[in-house]
């Protein structure tokens, strides 16, 4: 009896499940619409370093994270680096109002009101962000947005770009 219990416990421990939205897993593909009506599909970004951020107009930290992301994109001008900000507001108006009030010109904003894409990335906090490499794999993820995240994110992105030969 004891042997069976020990065997069961060890087998549980040895299971390792690769879950979507976790490090080094393939980033779930999506196809959403941008504010200009154009299609934003992750498959189009193969070969680029993507910073994917899930935000909403009602999320406090997002008031800081979006302008900051905009600044980062203006600083890292390379076309190989793209930022996709996926909005999860259930009402488009709230999102549009937020976008008018904050400078987000350098970002690609896409809308996911039903939350299907967020679901596929297993978003567990608002905001959440994922850094996707040129092969379409998630190499880092961040839950929430903190002052300490800023430097870390820039470092991770620059490291990926350095692999592509971009300073």
């Amino acid at each position, binding site marked *: 009896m004891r042997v069976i219990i020990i065997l069961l416990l060890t087998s549980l421990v040895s299971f390792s499940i690769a879950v979507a939205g976790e490090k080094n897993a393939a980033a779930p593909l999506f196809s959403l619409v941008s504010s200009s009506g154009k299609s934003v599909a992750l498959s189009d970004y193969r070969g680029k370093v993507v910073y994917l951020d899930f935000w909403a107009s*009602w999320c406090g930290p997002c008031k800081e994270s979006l302008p900051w992301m905009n600044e980062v994109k203006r600083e890292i001008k390379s076309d190989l680096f793209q930022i996709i900000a996926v909005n999860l507001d259930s009402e488009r108006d709230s999102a549009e109002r937020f976008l008018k009030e904050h400078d987000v010109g350098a970002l690609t904003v896409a809308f996911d009101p039903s*939350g299907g894409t967020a679901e596929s990335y297993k978003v567990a*906090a*608002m905001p959440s962000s994922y850094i996707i490499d040129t092969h379409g794999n998630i190499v880092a993820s961040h839950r929430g947005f903190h002052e300490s995240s800023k430097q870390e994110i820039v470092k991770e992105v620059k490291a990926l770009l350095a692999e592509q030969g971009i300073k």
Partner: protein
Amino acid sequence: MKILRLFVILFALSLCSCAEVKPWQKENLARGHMAFDPDQAEARYVRHLYTSKEGSSGGYGVGGGGCGCN
């Protein structure tokens, strides 16, 4: 009768539900009037008094208000 009572209890329990709220569905919880403490400064003061009196802390608040941001 015992079996009937058991069925009634089980039926009543089955009527309960746990609605899972996804992080991106917490828009209404993020509103000001949904926060536990509307006045942060006063709340911090009261919390400090409580911590001093009780000699313990915790059991309050959710990150970023009810919306769970950060």
